[in-house]
């Protein structure tokens, strides 16, 4: 708890002055302490999701007010948590639209409020118009939002490890779901996975390498990717791991 609060303050000093003033929830950036939620969610149960029947039914303009005609979301951060990495993506790729997808009500609401606050503070430069957060179940509804081959990059950062064997089917990486990710990814598109749980890392690598539509990037390729160093820094979960001096495991895969 203390650690996450500290993280918010670190950011306010380093990257987002004024914006992350935790004293003003109404006009400034939202305070995380009001949005905390249990880390696990059952992705198979019914939830009240308002999801579109088809990708062409999505009102993208409500999420990206300055979206251009014909412009599409290219990057998806699946399970974006409090949106730390999503914000980084927005800064790194101003020309690309990135979407954060998060299943937890309060957490996704935090990101929505955070993006709104960032946009208000940067109204003169138009920054952060290219990121948005969607509360949805990515395990179920990806094809409802994205057409075949639409996405260039997908991120699965510090996913819920679901340690118990009975809950392995809840893991965001599994054999059946990899086919769905391959469907929304364009050929040559990349899947970034990062975890601090070694067993989960092995699970991910095994399943991705078994799947005929993916190949793992070599270590040189992975290290040459400008996103790689950011993966170790930006996500809130990641920052926690760095402080704990834990190991973290990165694997990047290309959609064939």
């Amino acid at each position, binding site marked *: 708890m203390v650690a996450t609060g500290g993280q918010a303050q670190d950011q306010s000093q380093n990257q987002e002055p004024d914006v992350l003033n935790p004293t003003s*929830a*109404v006009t400034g950036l939202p305070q995380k302490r*009001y949005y905390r939620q249990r880390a696990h969610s059952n*992705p*198979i149960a*019914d*939830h*009240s999701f308002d999801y579109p*029947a*088809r*990708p062409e039914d999505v009102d993208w303009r409500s999420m990206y007010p300055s979206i251009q005609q014909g412009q599409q979301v290219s990057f998806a951060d699946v399970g974006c948590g409090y949106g730390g990495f999503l914000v980084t993506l927005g800064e790194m790729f101003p020309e690309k639209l990135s979407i954060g997808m998060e299943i937890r*009500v*309060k957490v996704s*609401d935090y990101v929505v409020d955070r993006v709104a606050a960032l946009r208000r503070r940067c109204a003169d430069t138009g920054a952060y118009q290219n990121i948005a957060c969607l*509360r949805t179940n990515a*395990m*179920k*509804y990806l*094809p*409802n939002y994205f057409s*075949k081959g639409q996405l260039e990059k997908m991120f699965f950062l510090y996913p819920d490890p679901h340690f118990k064997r009975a809950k392995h*089917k809840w893991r965001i990486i*599994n*054999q*059946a*779901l*990899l*086919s*769905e990710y*391959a*469907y929304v990814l364009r050929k040559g598109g990349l899947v970034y996975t990062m975890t601090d749980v070694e067993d989960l890392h092995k699970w991910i690598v095994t399943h991705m390498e078994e*799947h*005929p*539509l993916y190949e793992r990037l070599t270590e040189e390729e992975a290290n040459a990717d400008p996103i790689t160093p950011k993966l170790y820094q930006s996500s809130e979960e990641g920052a926690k791991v760095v402080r704990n001096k834990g190991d973290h495991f990165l694997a990047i895969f290309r959609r064939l």
Partner: protein
Amino acid sequence: MLYRSRPENARLLSTRPLSRASSALRFCSDSSSVLVTDKTGDCYQYDCVEVEAPPRLLLGHLSVVYDILWSEDQQHIITCDRDDKIRVTNYPATFDIHSYCLGHREFVSGLALLTEQHIASTSGDKTLRVWNYIQGKELLQHELPAPAVRLLVRQLEPEKVFQAAVLFYEHVDALGLYRLERSSDDTWSVTATQLVCAEAGSWSISNFTLTSDRIYITGAENKRLSLRVYDIATGQPASSGVPEGWLKMVLDGLGANEEGAPPFIPEDLSVWFKKRFDNVSDYLERKKRRIEEQQQQKCG
């Protein structure tokens, strides 16, 4: 369980355990294998020639798969699920999803092949739709009087005219019969509609099948399995052509009339509908109150 059917009797070929209760089943066009889906959305292929071969997991959904098709040329497997989706998967490369047919707003209960490129589907959203499944494109949407729970299609003219029979969920009419006509490549329309009451409400109907002139409907009457026959043209109980005692013979064969036969209770289909419990508005209400309180504190 797999039987070989012969005119005079059926011979049991093999009995294989399933990992979970099955939800749908379909043979391929030459019966060399059978596809079985289960309640968790996994789809397995069982070989019918090499009966000892272990099943192959072909694909997985995240919810119950209610129906499964195998295109005539065996290039595609088409599945539909409780999450409103129809998925078209390449075969034998089943790791590669060819397309989705999206548009239904409730569970998709039934699928039927029409032509090499076209399928019909029914859903709990009270629509019957026709798709070009290769392109994942919707070609026809027809409103139904009630949610649809099963679909059967009969070909009347090859590639052109079909009869779609739809079983409704709790409706005054048990069935709807729709004449589907293709007027050009991708243009389909419903040119005739007939509703069949089949004494709905007086017994609980579970399934049906149809021939060119009759509809056979099964259901439960006083918790006993029952079979009734209706005339397709009039929708009335069939008065002629069904031999005296034939229905009783069929039911006796199934052991339905035996003393002490277990009660027959059709599946409760209400669970097919999604429970849309609201876990958002409560939270938003509390948040609004919190912000108001903070504003008041500031002012005070």
